[in-house]
């Protein structure tokens, strides 16, 4: 492990965070200067950006003599520590702003932002200055396509190191990229991401007439984050057209960006072979139909169109792990809630901004299951596992099974730990809190449900849940690797 090389890269990452903060700061100054809104500027933003910039300079200075080459060990450390650093510096504006958030709560809010979870500890968002709300949205936007991916695209030189940085942060299956350089792939993904966000923003601006609401929602919809500057989330727009528009971009955010790159490159043969995206859309459609029917049958006073819109919004928001809320799904029939719980765990496609165990892994799991069932009576039969029309590497089978098993264990153990820390919680509350954070959704069930928040949780619980968020966002392995002493030896 070369600590200097790690420090230098971390400096670059913190520099990106500082740049984001300065943009928000400038936004607040301009609004304050033009007198557009009250409470446009927060002191926390100023101190936070200064601290982040100093942090970046110190880290860069500490690593100035380090080698440029990054090897596997350093890459793992950079990804893991980079996310922790992002969470730390991102939390400073919340903490220093003096809005009643303690250090643990500020850290929780920041990690919830970068991991695009969307769980919040802020009770009254209308009391928060606008530049801080913008920063809250921006953390999700930066975390959505990946801080490290952005880092590779903008600051990192091409090489083996950028490939490992990319691999450890993104859930995309690397072999599906049609570009040779990791840097090229990263730049393509970020361009698509930026393009989608801009289109989403323009549409929202036109539909709502409010550029601030449009910007903050555009930041968090494509990123499938779910932070809204409104206490009542996306429901406060009160406009079906806006809800449909947001649905489209959440759904796109849950699709693989690699797939979109293939569409843009007009590689139709490869697009036609895409299995994961097709299954993802089928699941979205089926779940919407079942949930809409179950909600509609349970209530007499609900128009069919409203039932469909409400169900579609909630199904898309939950499956893409966004976490916007237009309906209080905690009061839906049990069938609808169980479906939502399953979608929370499942999540979107690999290589998207969504969390969860990913549709691709589910497909693979089912294929492995079929294979093992046939093997009980025909042990000599040989199978070729394919995903998206391509042969999968033999190592992916145990990795997939291990990932799913470990997540299952984590759900169980996490629920127990939350129950220990919050004795007043029911079982559904504990399970909801763990699933909502581990799979980066945001709202869970019960007392952390659709119209609730995480403000009433103790500091220890908040710290534990924020670790779950990082585990979920980085797909376990990188975070767990940080705990292995062998990584840190020279």
């Amino acid at each position, binding site marked *: 492990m070369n600590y200097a090389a790690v420090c230098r890269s971390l400096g670059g990452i913190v520099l990106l965070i500082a740049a984001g903060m300065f943009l928000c700061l400038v936004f607040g100054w301009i609004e304050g200067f033009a007198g557009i809104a009250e409470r446009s500027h927060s002191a926390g933003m100023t101190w936070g950006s200064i601290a982040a910039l100093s942090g970046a300079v110190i880290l860069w200075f500490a690593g100035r003599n380090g080698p440029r080459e990054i090897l596997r060990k350093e890459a793992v450390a950079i990804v893991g520590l980079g996310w922790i650093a992002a969470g730390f510096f991102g939390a400073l504006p919340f903490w220093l702003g003096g809005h009643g958030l303690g250090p643990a709560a500020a850290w929780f809010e920041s990690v919830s932002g970068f991991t695009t979870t969307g769980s919040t500890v802020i009770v009254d968002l209308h009391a928060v200055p606008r530049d801080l709300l913008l920063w809250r949205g921006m953390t999700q936007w930066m975390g959505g396509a990946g801080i490290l991916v952005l880092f590779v695209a903008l600051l990192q030189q091409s090489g083996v190191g950028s490939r490992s940085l990319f691999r450890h942060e993104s859930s995309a299956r690397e072999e599906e990229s049609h570009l040779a350089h990791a840097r090229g792939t990263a730049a393509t993904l970020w361009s698509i991401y930026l393009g989608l966000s801009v289109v989403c923003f323009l549409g929202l601006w036109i539909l709502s007439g409010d550029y601030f609401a449009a910007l903050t929602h555009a930041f968090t919809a494509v990123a499938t984050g779910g932070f809204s500057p409104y206490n009542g989330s996306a429901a406060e727009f009160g406009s079906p057209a806006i809800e449909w528009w947001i649905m489209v971009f959440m759904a796109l955010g849950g699709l693989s960006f690699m797939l979109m790159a293939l569409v843009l490159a007009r590689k139709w043969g490869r697009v036609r072979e895409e299995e994961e995206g097709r299954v993802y859309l089928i699941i979205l459609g089926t779940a919407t139909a079942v949930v809409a029917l179950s909600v509609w049958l349970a209530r007499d006073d609900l128009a069919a169109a409203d039932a469909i819109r409400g169900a579609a919004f909630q199904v898309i928001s939950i499956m893409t792990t966004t976490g916007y809320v237009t309906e209080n799904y905690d009061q839906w029939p049990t069938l609808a809630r169980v479906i939502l719980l399953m979608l929370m765990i499942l999540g979107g496609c690999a290589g998207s901004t969504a969390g969860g165990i990913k549709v691709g892994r589910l497909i693979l799991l089912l294929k492995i299951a079929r294979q093992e069932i046939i093997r009980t009576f*025909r042990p*000599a*039969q*040989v*199978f*070729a596992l*394919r995903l998206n029309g391509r*042969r999968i590497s033999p190592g992916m089978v145990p990795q997939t099974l291990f990932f799913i098993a470990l997540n299952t264990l984590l759900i169980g153990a996490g629920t127990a730990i939350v129950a220990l820390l919050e004795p007043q919680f029911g079982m559904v509350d504990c399970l909801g809190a763990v699933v909502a954070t581990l799979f980066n959704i945001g709202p869970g069930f019960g007392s952390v449900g659709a119209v609730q928040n995480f403000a009433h949780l103790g500091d220890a619980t908040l710290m534990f849940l924020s670790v779950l968020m990082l585990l979920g966002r980085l797909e376990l392995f990188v975070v767990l690797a940080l705990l292995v002493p062998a990584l840190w030896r020279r």
Partner: protein
Amino acid sequence: MKIIIVGAGEVGCYLARHFSSGGHDVCLVERSEPMARAQQDRLDVRVIYGSGSVAHILREAGADGCDLFLAVTRDDSTNLVAALLARRMGARRTVARVHAAVLRDESVFDYRRAFRLDLMFSSERLAAVELAKHIRNPDQPVVEEIARGRIELQQFPLRADSLACGKPLREIGFPDRVRVGWIRRAERNIVPAADETLQEGDLLTVFGEVELMDKYVRRLRTGHSRPGRRSVVIAGGGEIALALAQMLTACGFDVRVIEADAERVAELAYLLPRVTVIHADPTSLEALREERVGECDCFVAAMPDDEDNLMTCLQAGNMGAPDCLTVVQREDYADAIGTAATIIGIRAAVSPREAVRRDLMRFVTAKRYHVLVRLEGGAQVIHFAVRADSPMAGVPVSQLELPVGVVLVAHIHETDARVPAAGDTFSAGDTVYALVEDAALDRFSRILRHGPGV
């Protein structure tokens, strides 16, 4: 005719012997000295020792003036390079043998044009076509595959219980590319029109695209078109098995392949997503019993070893497999297995060499056409190449003024094979297959030479 053959393996030697005994000048080029010397004693051909992909060797062999250049070594690259070199030196026709994988790759890249070949063939694939013909038609006496297995011609008598008896042709509802070309009824030959009524005992000749034939011919014979799903077990997972499995799944067969090599099995499972691939030794009795080989509809032995093939076929037949086919690799065994096959219950023994020879015969004929097969009742299927100077090039089929008793069966343009329709035109380089009655043969060959209206 001056013929150069590169590669003195099973295929090369077989072709050399065949062509030299047919009176052609054959020059055999072989890289391995012992093999080259051995052939010198056995064959009446000129043998040159050296690599076929080296220019001065080809020059020495006389590639600049040869009529037919065949590159048939085991190595794809050697064959393609040798054929291209020979073509550049002035060989009139070049043919390269490749492995079936290259043919599968043809959808991505046109090798034939890039290497300026007249023909690119895979002996494994040709053998698979031959096997598939037997498997698809377990009880048909006369079946001919045309255009390398894409179009098929069958001849069979109409039985009394067929629902088609007493119906005019147009009511049977054949698609465009499946046709009843010829009927022999009471010693008379009829080229039927749409209102011809079918009668019991008619000897029908039907041809069309392979995928459609199964369904429509069954309808003609029994009146309904739904077959049961038939199962085929292939022992051995070589290139022949792979090509065969692909053809059979395309025709709706339920295929199982048994192969002993672990790496090859993984490869097959990837290439054949709709086939059950089993990792077991196909020569072991236990493996055959495990797969209940006795209950399958057809068993094919396609391993590299002839002894293994023969023995597994016997095993399968013993277990009750109703239909056993085998591949014969070695020339030495061909005759013995061929004659003994029917006695020991093997329906057909297919030899890759023989399949290649039949496919190549059209290149070594001085006549304008080549007889593919003679049919019962005085007719034959012939095929001919449309040359650049041919009066037929560019004329629509309807204006060719074909004599009575000539039916066009297939038309190969580039890699595309189809049953010709009235509006089609032939262009230079195309190959055409026709069904010609004996009485019309002379007139037809005059048309081939001088064009319509003579």
